[in-house]
């Protein structure tokens, strides 16, 4: 049944992509994309917890049959990624032009993602992966939301291709060793490869998928690319595509060899945790400094991906030390985290689009939108923001609580280096979570709650509905956690051979494998919290001695425009910018124009920025090198026929020489 549904989804998406190319019937395209996604979600639900039955695709690649099967963890990630994707496709880009192109790109990225999740053949997988990246680039390029969208997209594609090359090399190494492109061979390949080669394959996989997940230094393509597109694009890239990349990395490291060797697993795990935690801290810090909904959310996506990757690294370390239970715990946490993240982040990306439609821009500033829009929208956005800032009882809180509980288990490890890295990772992630909290206080507090004297139209009803579906989905994920955990058990068993997922809950209580350490229960919390509020609410209701009198905001005796007088995005984040100035290296410049003597200031021009870490030292020199090389090699394209003939002649001579010797 599930395979039929997935086939239907594929065909519907394909049809949608073809229709969108005509530029007409775009509503039909949106319906098709939505219904295809819905079908795939239903397939994921039906096929969990076992995964889809394997099928052989009616095509051959490199002379070999291609099999298709989505494992349960893949289904989990695909399903959660598709929920925001389906809504984003339904709402489509808010850009005025380029909708057809955007829908085509969306269809391509969905088809690509489906292939990435399901195709169990190296060559096919790489093709699907490239289609997915192509779809993402097409979406952003067609929107034309930024005057200069080409450059960031090119930068994104450039970095993704760096990753893709790493992947090609890794896949080739594994395929050669396993004598087949089929994934089944890659696990066996571990036995044939030297330890160093195996470690190199692990590294190549981290680089390859890290480019898409936004591990350092690759996260630096995020703000520009996301910032050139719409929230709907962001919802797709940060949802289903990010999940696909994580799924591939997890599969590669755990199943394809590197993770099969205990020694390499432990060492690679330490590296992965270190890289991921550093990425999380840096991206959280940069997310906090963003004044644009999309760039803020994009850095936050990189941060959350890094958290999941850190859990994957922890799983590797535990596996390397022969602790499958803890490895299973760590790995399950990463899946929970990405599931909740896809919903919450999708909700906020669609919120960003709603803000764009209401105000005409993506800037985080006082808009009064929370007050003017429906309460369903407000609750949905609040739940999503709460989840991303790890506030109980939301899904983000559950997964990040599990995350810390997992790192606390680091003391069970027997080598100093792994114990140390687990402890430091816990500290680093604590900083990350704290900054993320402030980030979403800023985004929600300023961008939605903030008052303004300007009168914006409320958030559109359709956006309100979509955001509330996703927001309540986040809550449902947290509340139903005991049930969802059981659905992951089969995946954990297959990967680690333990009952870790089932052991993560004790009835309605969520526990880190045993109830001896700690427990939480969002399920009970949603019942108890309203009950607890009854007493104060009653006290307020019964003790009303004076009528409610509404007065203006107190500004010291005058009425000011609250949107000018209240906290701005920069005011909120500048203290941290000053404190972490060694990371941000902020620039602030104020020029004063005066009438006559410089004392009489007429106009102030203020600008500020934070400097990226890798851009100026890594990417800019690389780009410069490419340009210099291109200039040097320009001679090859001089356009003189004689020169080309000369070149051909030289080639012929070389070939002749090669043949003769």
């Amino acid at each position, binding site marked *: 049944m599930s395979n039929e549904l997935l086939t239907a989804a594929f065909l519907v998406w394909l049809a949608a992509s073809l229709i969108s190319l005509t530029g007409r019937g775009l509503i039909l395209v949106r319906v098709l994309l939505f219904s295809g996604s819905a079908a795939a979600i239903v397939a994921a639900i039906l096929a969990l917890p076992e995964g889809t039955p394997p099928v052989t695709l009616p095509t051959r690649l490199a002379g070999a049959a291609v099999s298709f099967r989505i494992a349960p963890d893949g289904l989990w990630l695909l399903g959660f990624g598709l929920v925001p994707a389906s809504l984003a496709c339904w709402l489509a880009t808010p850009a005025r032009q380029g909708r057809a192109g955007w829908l085509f790109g969306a269809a391509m990225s969905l088809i690509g993602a489906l292939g990435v999740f399901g195709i169990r053949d190296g060559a096919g997988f790489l093709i699907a992966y490239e289609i997915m990246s192509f779809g993402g680039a097409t979406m952003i390029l067609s929107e034309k939301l930024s005057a200069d969208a080409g450059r960031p997209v090119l930068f994104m594609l450039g970095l993704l291709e760096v990753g893709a090359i790493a992947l090609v090399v890794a896949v080739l190494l594994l395929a050669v060793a396993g004598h087949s492109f089929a994934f089944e061979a890659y696990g066996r390949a571990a036995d044939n490869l030297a330890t160093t080669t195996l470690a190199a394959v692990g590294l190549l996989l981290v680089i390859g998928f890290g480019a898409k997940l936004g591990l350092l230094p690759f996260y630096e393509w995020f703000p520009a690319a996301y910032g050139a597109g719409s929230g709907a694009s962001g919802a797709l890239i940060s949802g289903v595509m990010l999940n696909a990349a994580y799924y591939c990395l997890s599969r590669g490291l755990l199943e394809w060899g590197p993770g099969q060797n205990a020694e390499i697993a432990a060492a690679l795990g330490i590296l992965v945790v270190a890289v991921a935690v550093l990425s999380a801290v840096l991206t959280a810090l940069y997310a906090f400094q963003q004044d644009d909904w999309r760039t803020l959310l994009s850095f936050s996506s990189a941060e959350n991906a890094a958290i999941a990757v850190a859990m994957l690294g922890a799983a590797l370390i535990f596996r390397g030390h022969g602790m499958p239970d803890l490895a299973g715990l760590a790995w399950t946490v990463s899946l929970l985290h990405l599931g909740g993240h896809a919903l919450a982040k999708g909700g906020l990306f669609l919120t960003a689009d709603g803000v764009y439609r209401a105000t005409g821009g993506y800037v985080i500033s006082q808009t009064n939108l929370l007050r003017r829009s429906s309460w369903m929208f407000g609750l949905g956005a609040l739940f999503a923001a709460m989840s991303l800032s790890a506030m109980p009882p939301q899904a983000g809180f559950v997964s990040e609580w599990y995350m810390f509980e997992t790192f606390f288990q680091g003391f069970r490890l027997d080598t100093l280096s792994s114990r140390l890295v687990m402890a430091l990772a816990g500290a680093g992630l604590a900083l990350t979570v704290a900054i993320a909290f402030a980030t979403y206080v800023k985004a929600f507090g300023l961008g939605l709650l903030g008052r303004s004297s300007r009168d914006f139209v409320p958030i559109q009803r359709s956006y309100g509905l979509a955001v509330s579906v996703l927001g309540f989905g986040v809550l449902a994920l947290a509340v139903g956690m005991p049930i969802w955990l059981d659905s992951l058990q089969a995946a954990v068993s297959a990967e680690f051979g333990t009952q870790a997922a089932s052991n993560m809950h004790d009835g309605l209580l969520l526990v880190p494998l045993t109830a001896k350490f700690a427990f939480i229960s969002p399920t009970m919390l949603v019942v108890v919290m309203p009950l607890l509020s009854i007493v104060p609410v009653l006290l307020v209701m019964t003790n009303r001695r004076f009528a409610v009198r509404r007065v203006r905001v107190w500004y010291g005796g005058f009425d000011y425009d609250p949107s000018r007088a209240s906290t701005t995005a920069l*005011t909120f984040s500048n203290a941290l910018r000053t404190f972490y100035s060694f990371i941000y290296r902020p620039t602030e410049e104020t020029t004063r124009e005066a009438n*006559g003597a410089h*004392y009489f200031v007429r106009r102030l021009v203020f600008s500020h920025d934070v400097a990226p870490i890798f851009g100026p030292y890594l990417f800019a020199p690389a780009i410069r090198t490419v340009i210099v090389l291109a200039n040097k090699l320009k001679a090859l394209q001089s356009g003189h026929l004689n020169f080309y003939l000369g070149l051909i002649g030289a080639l012929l001579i070389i070939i002749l020489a090669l043949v003769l010797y």
Partner: protein
Amino acid sequence: MTAKEIKSLHPAVLKETAENLIASGGRMQMAYAWYPQPHRIELRYVASVGAQAPFAIWRCDANEPIPSLANTCPLLSWYEREITDLFGLKFLDQPQPGRLVLHEGVSLRQAPFDPDYPADLPLCVEPALQVVPELGGSDADVQLLPFGPVRADVFESAEFLFFYVGEAILHYQPRLFFKHRGMEKRFEGLEPARAVVLAERVSGIGSVAHALAYCQAVEAASNCIVPARARFLRVLLAEMERLYNHLHYFGHLCHTTTLKVAEAEGKLLEEQVKQLNTRLTGSRFLRSILAVGGLRRDLSPTSWLGTELASLQDRFLRYAEHMENTASHLDRLITTGKLDRRLAFDQGATGPVERASGIDRDLRRDHPYAAYTELPPMVATRENGDAHARAQVRMAEVNASIMLIQRVLDLLPDGAIHAVWKVAPGSEGLGWTESPRGTLFYAVHFDHHGKLARVKIKSPSFSNWRVFPYTVHDSNMMDYAINEASFGLTIAGCDR
């Protein structure tokens, strides 16, 4: 002051004369307007040309457009704007036109100082926000953070607008004159003897300085010679006023650096001096004692005040030593609110503020009045121009004041405390004091009945408020309160 000391200038040569004054080391003190006759506005500029030399006074008929001197002498900008607000006289090329004393929301059909302005006709004031410099660049990221006019704690009313970017202050613009009571206009038509109580209430904590400057202005106009005992007692009163003001200053400064015991100690010492004031005059603010021609009644401080002040001085010295040895306190003062010498001069900083920026001026020594010729004060200066320097100058002044009072008590002559005087109709006079906060001027003009026709008050805070914002631009919010406290500003005197 006689007519020949007053130089009449044509508007065309005004700028050149001002430039010459600055070039020759002189300094503009104030500018004001008055109506010698109905419908004829006359401008007055008062400048100092050097220590011990009489003040230069320029007269300029405002029948034709007057060029603004603000670019030549930036401190005059506020005086010009005040004249525009109150007299309706506009200046050509004023670099910062806009309301000052009367706010943006005041609708004016007639200038309040116009002789035809009906007495007791209230101004019509609509709430309106102040005009601030335009913002460019990432302007949406700048928070226009308002404080006041009703501020936290017990403070005088003023509105402060910060161009704020999270701790950092890009630009700061205060709007004062919420407390403008039209005090100068209240003098008009009064008998000169009866206006002393009014002068005492222009700035409550500067009652002696104001009343004394006023009395001396009238005495200058009437060529009255004040008896020696009254002059000595005037010094005593002025220095007692300096004492309680400076002690309050330290209490408040330590409040801003959150030094609780030091705050309590400073305020307690202030209270002790106020109680000594009560014992001396019956008034905690030394009011109801000064009169034109001398004093209203005799004082007898010799038997007891010396010992009280000696113990106060011991206590203060220990207090000051503690403050100077507290690292947390000094850390927050040193380099905070740096006012360089050039800025202090250009914008007319005065009193301890300018002396802390290396400008050695003190009217008590440079233009002595009362008994300061016989009792020259020690004038302390510092070069750093930061909050610490301002505190240190005041610290030295507390000691100098106590010593000066002890000398008054030693040398206090016997004799009359009041001289008879009479104002010649149509005369005028200039009086000044070095108040605890700096130079204070009273210019008085009499009509043909010997009644007051115009009184211009230049209070020290009017000058220092003009300077203060320039030390706040590009600083930190954390330092703001400390910086403000280190200036020791008052608003009542500035607003009048």
